[in-house]
């Protein structure tokens, strides 16, 4: 995905005016779904929330399965955006706009998915918060946005969260992963406290603990026994996916 082309430069089939063309495409009996899914993907890449919402509405109006719209249309955009970010073609504001557009589309499609009982299955349940004493949440918010847009169910506990609060929420929602963020070197000890509390309460190894923050390193993660660490929100997505595959495998093995 890291070719020389700019992320805005997509195939010739894309037409920004597609939304208004949809009824005519239907009448003409054209290959609608391909075009529509392509437009959905592009609306996410463009970070165009209004267009994404409009396309979602159009899809419902013409009877496209909402789950298919997500999986084949919008989600492809998020994957593309993540890849482009990974190779330095897209930047954090682009990525956030893509995530927001994704949210706009899902908001439209969700009621119909619920009605059909075809709700998009969450990739996993993740609890996020910043360590006690740390009110810096920009990194944690980015991770929440990206993971949520990618299909994880996020429970964001906000800032300066105590180990007890992490544990209580993890039990309450039967979380798969707990993510603890700390910007300050002085609050990084709070990450360790959360991991210890998860251990004390017998939640690990079933619940995975991941950490992040400007001063956090792989070494620190190993030292405090975290299951993973990531440098940025996109790496956090990969990390969460990898950990979920371990959780799933384990579940299967135990079953």
């Amino acid at each position, binding site marked *: 995905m890291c070719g020389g082309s700019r992320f805005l430069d997509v195939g010739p089939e894309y037409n920004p005016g597609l939304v208004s063309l949809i009824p005519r495409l239907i009448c003409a009996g054209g290959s609608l779904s391909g075009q529509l899914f392509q437009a959905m993907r592009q609306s996410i890449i463009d970070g165009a929330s209004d267009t994404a919402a409009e396309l979602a509405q159009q899809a419902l109006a013409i009877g496209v399965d909402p789950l298919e719209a997500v999986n084949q249309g919008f989600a492809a955009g998020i994957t593309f955006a993540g890849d482009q*970010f990974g190779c*330095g073609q897209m*930047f*954090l*504001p682009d990525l956030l706009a893509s995530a927001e557009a994704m949210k706009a589309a899902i908001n439209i499609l969700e009621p119909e998915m619920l009605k059909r009982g075809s709700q998009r299955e969450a990739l996993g349940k993740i609890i996020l918060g910043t360590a006690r*004493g740390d*009110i*810096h949440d*920009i*990194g944690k918010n*980015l991770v929440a946005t990206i993971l949520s847009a990618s299909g994880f169910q996020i429970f964001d506990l906000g800032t300066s969260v105590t180990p007890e609060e992490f544990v209580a929420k993890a039990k309450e929602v039967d979380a798969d992963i707990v993510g603890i963020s700390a910007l300050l*070197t*002085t609050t*990084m*000890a709070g990450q360790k406290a959360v991991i210890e509390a998860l251990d004390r309460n017998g939640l690990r190894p079933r619940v995975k603990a991941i950490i992040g923050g*400007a*001063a956090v*390193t792989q070494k620190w993660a190993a030292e405090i026994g975290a299951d993973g660490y990531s*440098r*940025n*929100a996109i790496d956090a997505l990969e990390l969460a996916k990898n950990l979920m595959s371990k959780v799933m495998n384990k579940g299967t093995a135990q079953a």
Partner: protein
Amino acid sequence: MRPRIQLLTPELIGRILCEAFELLMSPGVRVGSAPVVELLRSAGVEVNDGVARVPEQLVRNCMASAPRDFNLYNRSGEKAVHYGGDDVHFDPGSCCVQMLDPDTLEARPSETRDLVRLIQVTESLPQFAAQSTAVVCNDAPSAIGDLYRLLVVLQHSHKPVVTGSFSAAGLQGMIDLLAADSGSQDNLRKKPRAVFDVCPSPPLNWSEFGSHNLLELARAGVPAEIVSMPLAGGTAPVTLVGSVTQHAAEVLAGITLHQLAGPGSPVVWGGAPAIFDMRTGGAPMGAVETAMLNMACAEVGKHLGLPTHGYLVATDSKFVDAQAGAESARSAMLGALTGINMISGAGMLESLACHSVEKLVIDAESIASAYRLVRGVETRGATLATAMFAQTGLSGEFLKLKETRAHFRQEQHLPSPVIDRSARGSEPPSDAFTRARARVNELVSQYQKPSFPEDVLRKYQSIVEREADRAGVASALSGD
């Protein structure tokens, strides 16, 4: 003529302050603690749901009571740092948890021996007017880590100290330690040896911890350096000027709190603003835009007639390499040309995550060059060149002239052996890092630890033991 750089016009500074005052009213400033709310309400400020709307007139009254300049003193009670006017000083950056190991080139957790080495080198280099509590000592109990760092610095240095506490509870012990160093609380107030960095949280948030320490420092009369750190595009407007405006609002709010608690107490218009890296989400301290933010923020403070501080001479590189040299030297020059009173950051790598004593001695050379630059092109004697030509004619024998001998030390900065200007000879040439390592070893071997009267050491010990008990630490440490 002293050369200077100005990024902002007076008109633009006027607009920045105008919008900063608007921000203080809407959206207002988040204030974290009950004592701060009480203090503000008693001054007639409206505080609802933890958000204060601070009117311009109150801010201006508070700014009027803040001193335009003050001094920090060394251990002998002599003036060593003048915060005010265009005076420029540098101190090593703080506070890291990692140290670059010069043998393995890996970052490892910093320990007491690293802090001592940093202090020893800083002590020997005239480029650093002050010490800083530069690294966390991971081998000391973290519950009193801030006090311990200060203890180590006080036991190894004569210079003033730029420091800060890690918690609200930790501040009093540090002030007591400084009072023991100065002889009494009153002496500390009259001749402060240290300045404390106190940080608001962007955007426009004076947290419980930050504001508590700001008020306590104001009441104790110990200088406070307000280090506002907007990240342009992340926690602040993406435009440089927008972030400078937010910085101004945060510092103005801080000065208001500070002066309400202790009118006339020394306070610094400081900062560590940076751009927000749109790839990594980090704060690139070596970026030229980060330097520009520091310069512009300081210009606003200087316009208001307040002492200033900035965070420069740091790099984002993980090694002491060409990037580290380029970024650090560039910002040292820019900071000096702006006339920032205290410039913190030297020695720091990896966007302030790691310290290197080898980088510190290289940065010292950049700082010396920056000092040379701001002295500008000076005139000496009645003529510029003709009097010297009258002696040499066309012989070209300037090396023999008494003027040459008299002036070359002022005209040229004579670098240490860290800077290579030698001709290629029989010895194989070395790189800057190798020379820096040798220089560090040389300075450390020449260093002499100051001696202390027994009673001062006993006072130190009793404060550390008291604080260790308070924090629930089993055994106290000497800091030696």
